[in-house]
């Protein structure tokens, strides 16, 4: 994980050095890399027979836990957002 963060820091430094120059291509590069990553993730899961065989049986439970966890965290974020928002609007005035 620290290698990954190191890559990001290196990127920040390089980006900061070249901040005067505008690179429009960066957005496209980002998305292509994400497509590639998700493609590889799919391939990794698909080629793992243990996971695929279990999907039917365990998939429903996973869907339930995944969705509930996500919804719970969204509601948490909503709570925090409401907590900071009034403060923010007075700040802007």
């Amino acid at each position, binding site marked *: 994980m620290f290698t990954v963060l190191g890559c990001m820091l290196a990127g920040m430094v390089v980006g900061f050095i070249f901040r005067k120059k*505008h690179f429009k291509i960066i957005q496209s590069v980002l998305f292509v890399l994400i497509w590639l990553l998700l493609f590889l993730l799919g391939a990794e899961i698909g080629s793992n027979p243990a996971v695929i065989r279990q999907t039917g049986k365990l*998939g429903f439970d996973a869907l339930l836990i995944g969705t509930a966890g*996500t919804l719970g965290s969204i509601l948490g974020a909503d709570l925090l*957002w409401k907590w900071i928002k009034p403060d923010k609007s007075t700040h802007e005035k």
Partner: protein
Amino acid sequence: MKSSLIILSFFATGLLLGIFRLLPETLFNEEISFYVLCCLMFTVGFSIGQQGNFVRQFRRLNPRIVFLPLFTIAGTWLGALAVGFFINGFSLFDCLAASSGFGYYSLSSILITRYKGVELGTIALLSNIVREIFTLLFAPLMVKYFGKLSPISSGGATTMDTTFPVIVQSAGKDYALVSIYHGFITDLSWTFPSLFW
């Protein structure tokens, strides 16, 4: 929404090619995706560095935002607990452990598989993928209805890599650093709970 569908179709294509073994075996080692991740992070860093005054940008945000990872974790556990009562065959603690990857599918599922068995490991993997795809697809809707922090919470530990661009697109560039901070903290914190539960 369109960009999310593209992402999903790439995932689905990879999945199908993997199931039917249509890809060369060398593609399946984890190193390739690690290199891609490093490239992605470099690019993410680059786009942040380009904005220059990110320290000032961060200061402009409300300091209470530092609590965001706590809200994410608490919300996730409450959600997992709520459905845990309806799941047969697994204890409440198992459900908590499975949800504690916060979207970091690879590592958490490997650890859970090792310490709690393949079945729960698979659930952890799948439920975290559900979480990631959910975020990739619905980030714009979340911003609309639950505020700009919601896609960050929803993305869990992935908010500094795979879900990062989608979050910046939907919540705005001001939240780029929040997203990375959040990903970093949840990433560090999942290890403990997923074993503890």
